[in-house]
């Protein structure tokens, strides 16, 4: 009965929910089933019930908490400012600690050691490229096939960025440390290249610390709390010397900003400052450090990743970047696309349903170019969009526009 780990949801976090129910209609799982058990209020009440010993961590509790997408759409609409995302991580840590079977322990181990290891990531990348290049994908099981459809074209080998640094032409505005992430490095190499080029152009000195590792978001969201905490401590040390840590995956930047949940004492140091790349880019556009390019590049459908919009309240910045690139933007309704980290693997049906809804909505906008600032969403969108769609990071779109621009303008 009760909670057992230091990560558990606390009384003060939980009691900030006054059960007003204003979050209900914003929750995708509540919208699907209409059940209190599948709503933010219900989940918070369930967590309180365990704290109070009304119930234990049983099957119903586990299902309630596992069904949650972790999209945090319930947070910005909550007038009582309940830290839902934090309590969810805590509840998942408790489920893992109290109910962790062999499968879950294996998952936790993979998430910490594999995602944290560049060597293993290279092997996985090589294998994935193999599947992509040889057409093996066609005989893969359905679940895997739809996942593979979401991937970018993967090269056999990508040069590692770790340990390198990039200098701007003039005295740097600040030094930023780029998180290359677990899978981002090899699978989204173009996004990293565009990010570095953009940051340097905006006057930043960019370093890619070699001691860094996976941010730990996937582990944290799955309840592998100790692993997530160890990854946080490693990154805190690796990024000690920079002014800002910058990430170009919304899930990573959101998690890095929440490191105080994970890193004990003063591990993070005074100056732990995290920015999503879209924040720095939009700021640079507004300060005139990045040029506004000529209009007329067409329409782009702008997807708002949950971990950008709900977790970090970054709403206008991607639009600023795209407009500066010369695009006209049309917003897609910010309901979770169903990617939600490992959710798409653990609960494929719900994930696919949300993915299809999102694809339909993009279809209705008429745009064939989609901007997404999170790799998980990007893959989900691509795998559900049939036809001539392109899904890219806003920063890539800006840098492409910049390289297309005539001399004088750029």
């Amino acid at each position, binding site marked *: 009965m009760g909670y057992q780990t230091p990560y558990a949801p606390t009384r*003060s976090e939980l*009691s*900030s*929910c*006054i*059960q*007003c*129910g*204003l*979050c*209900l*209609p914003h929750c995708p799982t509540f919208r699907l*089933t*209409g*059940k*209190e*058990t599948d709503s933010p209020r*219900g989940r918070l*009440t*369930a967590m309180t*019930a365990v704290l109070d010993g*009304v*119930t234990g961590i*049983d099957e*119903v*509790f586990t299902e*309630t908490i596992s069904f949650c997408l972790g999209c945090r759409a319930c947070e910005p*609409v*909550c*007038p*009582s*400012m309940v830290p839902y995302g934090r309590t969810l991580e805590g509840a998942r840590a408790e489920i893992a600690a109290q109910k962790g079977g062999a499968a879950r322990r294996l998952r936790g181990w993979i998430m910490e050691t594999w995602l944290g290891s560049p060597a293993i990531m290279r092997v996985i990348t090589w294998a994935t490229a193999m599947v992509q290049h040889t057409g093996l994908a066609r005989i893969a099981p359905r679940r895997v096939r739809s996942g593979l459809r979401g991937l970018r074209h993967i090269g056999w080998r990508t040069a590692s960025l770790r340990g390198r640094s990039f200098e701007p032409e003039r005295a740097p505005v600040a030094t930023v440390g780029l998180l290359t992430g677990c899978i981002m490095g090899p699978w989204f190499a173009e996004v990293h290249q565009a990010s570095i080029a953009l940051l340097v152009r905006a006057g930043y000195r960019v370093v890619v610390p070699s001691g860094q590792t996976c941010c730990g978001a996937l582990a944290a969201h799955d309840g592998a709390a100790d692993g997530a905490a160890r990854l946080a401590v490693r990154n805190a040390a690796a990024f000690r010397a920079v002014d800002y840590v910058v990430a170009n995956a919304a899930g990573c930047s959101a998690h890095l900003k929440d490191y105080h949940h994970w890193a004990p004492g003063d591990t993070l140091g005074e100056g732990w400052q995290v920015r999503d790349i879209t924040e720095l880019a939009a700021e640079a556009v507004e300060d005139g450090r990045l040029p506004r390019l000529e209009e007329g590049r067409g329409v782009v459908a702008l997807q708002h990743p949950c971990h950008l919009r709900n977790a970090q309240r970054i709403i206008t910045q991607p639009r600023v970047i795209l407009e500066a690139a010369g695009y006209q933007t049309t917003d897609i309704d910010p309901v979770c696309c169903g990617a939600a980290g490992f959710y798409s693997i653990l609960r494929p049906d719900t994930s696919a349903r949300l993915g299809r809804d999102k694809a339909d909505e993009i279809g209705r906008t008429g745009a064939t170019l989609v901007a997404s600032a999170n790799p998980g969403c990007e893959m989900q969108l691509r795998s559900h969009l049939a036809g001539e769609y392109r899904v890219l990071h806003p920063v890539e779109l800006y840098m492409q526009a910049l390289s297309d621009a005539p001399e004088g303008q750029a």
Partner: protein
Amino acid sequence: MAATLTGSNTKLRDDLIRLLGTERVMDSTLERHLYAKDAGVYIGNPTVVVMIETTEEVAQVVRAARHHGVPIVARGAGTGLSAGAVPEVGGVVLVTTRMNRIEEIDAENHTAWVGPGVINLDLSRATTPFGMHFAPDPSSQSACTVGGNIACNSGGPHCLSEGSTVNHILALEVVTDTGDVMIVGGGAPDPIGLDLRGILVGSEGTLGIVTRALVKLTPNPPDVRTMAVAFPDIEDAAATVSGIIAAGLIPAALEMMDQLMMQAIENWLHAGLPVEAGALLLAEVTGVTEAVEAEAEIITRIAHGNNALSVQVAVSPQEREILWKSRKSAFGAVAQAAPDYYLHDTVVPRTRLVEAMRQVYEIGQRYQITMMNVFHAGDGNLHPLMAFDASEPGRLDEVKAAADELVEICVEKGGVLSGEHGIGIEKRHLMPLLFTEMDLDAQARVKEAFDAGGVFNPGKVLPEGSRCFDFGRPVPEGAWV
């Protein structure tokens, strides 16, 4: 009699599962716990919870529940504040959230048939393309259901000019205590015969289950001006409200909040509210452009005559939206002050607003409870919010005592018990303050006429013993009393 309705009731559950399937019948400890309360402070004890999708299913569940002698409590979104959806003595909690279809919109006649689980704001959004909306706009409108609005006869800021829910319901499809389906009211504004529709609206789920409603839609006004006026104190704001009404204007809405309330909202929303001011008045006028401009000017003049510190007129729809959002998130924002809140809802004649407010603050001081105030100033509907910590021993009782005092002072001044949130469990014991024995008996007889067996939401609204003359009435077989 099924006196012990705590814990689950296996036979009933098995019958319900046969009707609805396992996914729609919930009776584990945790599931029952999650349906034990609404947005208020009372906690009940559901026997079993069912997710309903059709009228026929409601009828079958009613028959099954009767057969087992177990009462039924309807539930929409559970945003009620007076414990209407709380199964106080156990029972089947019948959840309508899946009956959320907007069946047809008749744009020509400005009506729509909707399921009871349709969310209030979803209805207005769906009718926007036709230039119409559903006028009742409780602050909870983004979440609460039309069924809940009907059951509580809910109001909102714009009820000052549009009236509460009852004015916007033309007909209802209702499942009765025998499991039969009846339709009351009709498309005509004044249907012939006794107005049962008027009785059912506001009956808080005690007379039958609403399974469909024919709602009236209101055309969107051609133009709007929303104004935020800051005052040094509540008195000046209240004087302005009186001045506006005395000038013969009926604005679409007149809302007020005090400084503590503004601060809590601002902290969350960053809407740019004038937090240094003692009170804020939100006034909205609607109509053709010339009229709204003229009225906005009159209001500005009256406000300046009453020491207004600033008058801000929302120009863009976004500015208007953020002002309303700040007003409508008021209740939630309180939790920043303390972990629990008790939101009250009483009415005083508008002319006695200022003295009532003084007494509200005085009660707060005496009980050492933080009182924040936000209210529908135009119709004297007060919503004092008490922020407290229920984990302090005895605190909840003190808060309830303070709440009772609040009601008493309002009734004393010629006001009423509840402006819009309903009676439920919360104010049932206060009904005799307003009603004589004869009044209560008349109401109890209406209840009996609809639901002799007491299957629907027993114990709500009417205090025990309301029926004065019930000598040895035979109780029907299987009835729950």
